[in-house]
């Protein structure tokens, strides 16, 4: 019923609109940062000597590199979150994190 009535209501309620915008901006910032880093590191790896155009092997390298960077990101993220949880379990007094 709630969904039905909010569908009929043309304007989204203020609270949800703000939350949506915050979520969207956070996701954008995160994505932009990832793209920036992928570009930086993979350019370093895949284009040691820039030619007159991006060759097909360089493009292939970029694809692999991008996947690899994201895999690294996920591994690092998992490890970091595990660590935070462990530290919080060990001592609530630790203010490092």
């Amino acid at each position, binding site marked *: 019923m709630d969904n039905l009535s909010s569908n009929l209501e043309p304007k989204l309620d203020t609270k949800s609109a703000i939350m949506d915008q915050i979520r969207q901006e956070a996701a954008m910032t995160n994505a932009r940062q990832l793209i920036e880093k992928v570009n930086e590191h993979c350019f370093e790896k*895949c284009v040691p000597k820039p030619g007159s155009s991006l060759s097909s092997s360089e493009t292939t390298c970029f694809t692999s590199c991008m996947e690899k960077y994201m895999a690294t990101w996920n*591994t*690092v993220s998992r490890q970091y979150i595990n660590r935070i949880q462990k530290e919080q379990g060990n001592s609530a007094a630790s203010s490092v994190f």
Partner: protein
Amino acid sequence: MDYTNSAPAGLDLSKLSEKDKHELQQFVINEAQKTRIQQTVHTLTDTCWKKCVTGTIRNGKLDRNEETCAQNCVDRFLDANITVIKHLESMRN
């Protein structure tokens, strides 16, 4: 990012109920923490990529050595962080 545009048009905060305000406040705190953690993950990935992915890129998978290296990299970086802070604290005395 366009921060001048950060207040959604047509949204009147003063019309929010106290309950909604509280909920929003908590939401913002949570999102800020999530962003901080993500930020650290970006920095750590940057550092650990440089340390652990040293060869040429052959495929998109992270091999065993690289994965173990990345995991150790995160833990040792944080150990180092704690060591620095502890040493600084001891210097204060």
